[in-house]
């Protein structure tokens, strides 16, 4: 596989021809003739919408992207880092191309508040910034207080459900674990970000332990009644790790003791050597604290042609923060697809035109079961004018027949291409 440097170089070569630097439109970059869009969050949704707004408007629309981290760190592929198959540098990418190639103004800062009436966002270090339209793609935030003893103990009981320092902490704890240790992974009730992700993680941890610490055990403590994605395929993968992975459904976590790494569940008490708790989650704080309409007090309710928060024109929300349409997963692939629908809609709206009345989005999530073999789940969602939301196309999509090496290669290619589609 290419390393990241080679990847970025070739990415640069590929898109150079279509970059904005050679365009006359670039001269208008600071004038904002086409309007000013502020994007909050530079993850899968936010980076994509920023690039596509610039690309498709040919530089007419000014875009400011505000992201708290200095670099993008990918959640997809981070389970491979935890399993020792990839390094942090493999999943970390700079925002430089968004700046230099696409003319996005990328600001490293925290957005503290959104004023939907005044159309401004306020930031920690860059004051108040006005927008014509804002796109929120803040991902998720955790509800630590739903599990007794969890709040403030992220270092001792990592989630690693946002890639970055947490990924490193969990990897380190796994490396430090003794042979014969217990790695317990807790999965919250659906919907959570990346339905197959926890099961992939169990496989990646088991794959490492089988090689390095074969007397150990992975306990998968699932608050749900069954495996939430690719059930038959993961059941088979878990059988391949017999004696190593134990799957325990219907186990909702009540509380933890961070010092002893003990988990108190509905029916069990588990003492672990590494306790990896994925806490219950909701839309990113900036989305839940700005007076946007929420469903179940967790996810933002949107109009599906423009992804504007219902009743709040000018505020678009994409990615994991949404209350999803039927069978729509919280995935990076889906956030990237929604971002393109929104980029197209915003360009139309800023020009006084109606949004595309028939947007399509599709999803694919690849999961690894060991170092080489991966499998997918895919779906295509067409906008339904009667239901006024995207609906999965019956007979399309589906899962792999079995995990296989060819799709292991495609999964790596998927990551390279989607990272370039967002950031190169």
């Amino acid at each position: 596989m290419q390393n990241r440097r080679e990847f970025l170089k070739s990415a640069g070569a590929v898109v150079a021809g279509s970059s904005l630097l050679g365009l006359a439109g670039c001269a208008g970059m600071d004038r904002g003739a086409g309007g000013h869009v502020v994007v909050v969050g530079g993850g899968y949704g936010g980076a994509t919408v920023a690039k596509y707004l610039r690309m498709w408007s040919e530089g007419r629309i000014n875009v400011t992207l505000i992201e708290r981290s200095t670099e993008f760190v990918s959640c997809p592929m981070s389970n491979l880092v935890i399993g020792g198959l990839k390094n942090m540098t493999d999943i970390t990418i700079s925002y430089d191309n968004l700046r230099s190639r696409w003319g996005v103004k990328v600001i490293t800062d925290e957005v503290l508040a959104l004023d939907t009436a005044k159309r401004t966002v306020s930031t920690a270090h860059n004051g108040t910034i006005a927008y014509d339209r804002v796109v929120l793609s803040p991902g998720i935030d955790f509800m630590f207080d739903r599990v007794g003893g969890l709040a403030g103990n992220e270092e001792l009981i990592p989630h690693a459900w946002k890639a970055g320092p947490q990924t490193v902490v969990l990897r380190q704890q796994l490396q430090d674990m003794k042979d014969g240790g217990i790695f317990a992974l807790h999965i919250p009730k659906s919907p959570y970000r990346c339905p197959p992700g926890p099961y992939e993680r169990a496989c990646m941890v088991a794959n490492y332990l089988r090689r390095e610490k074969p007397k150990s055990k992975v306990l998968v403590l699932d608050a749900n009644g069954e495996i939430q994605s690719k059930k038959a395929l993961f059941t088979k993968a878990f059988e391949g790790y017999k004696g190593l992975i134990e799957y325990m459904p219907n186990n909702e976590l009540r509380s933890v003791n961070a010092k002893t790494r003990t988990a108190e569940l509905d029916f069990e008490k588990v003492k672990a050597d590494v306790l990896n708790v994925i806490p219950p989650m909701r839309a990113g704080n900036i989305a839940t604290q700005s007076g946007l309409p929420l469903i179940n007090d967790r996810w933002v309710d949107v109009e599906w042609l423009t992804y504007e928060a219902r009743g709040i024109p000018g505020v678009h929300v994409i990615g994991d923060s949404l209350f999803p349409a039927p069978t729509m997963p919280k995935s990076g692939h889906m956030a990237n697809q929604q971002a393109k629908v929104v980029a197209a809609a915003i360009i139309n709206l800023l020009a006084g035109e109606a949004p595309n009345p028939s947007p399509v989005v599709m999803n694919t999530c690849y999961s690894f079961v060991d170092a080489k073999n991966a499998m997918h789940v895919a779906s295509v969602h067409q906008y339904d004018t009667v239901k006024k939301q995207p609906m999965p196309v019956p007979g399309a999509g589906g899962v792999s027949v079995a995990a296989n090496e060819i799709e292991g290669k495609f999964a790596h290619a998927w990551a390279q291409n989607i990272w370039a589609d967002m950031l190169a």
Partner: protein
Amino acid sequence: MNAKLVLTTLCLTGLAGLSHANDPNLARNLAATCANCHGTSGKSLGGMESLAGEPKEKLLQKLADFRSGAKPASIMHQISKGYTDEQLDLITAYYAAMK
């Protein structure tokens, strides 16, 4: 257009309500749904084929073969069934015109 493509169109129009009014950038928008695997504007970094600059008829034939099963695939048989003939027509024309 071959018989299998027509058949799939019939299935899709059976959906509750697909829209018929078109956006002038529909082809661009639809093609972008392929881009996170096949590359922005159909220019892949590798591992999956580039679509940019490929003749339209060739792309359409491959998609028809994925749908019918004539061309074995890991995933494209499932993805291609999610789009109408008109949509694939627009997408392939768009990629064929990309340099």
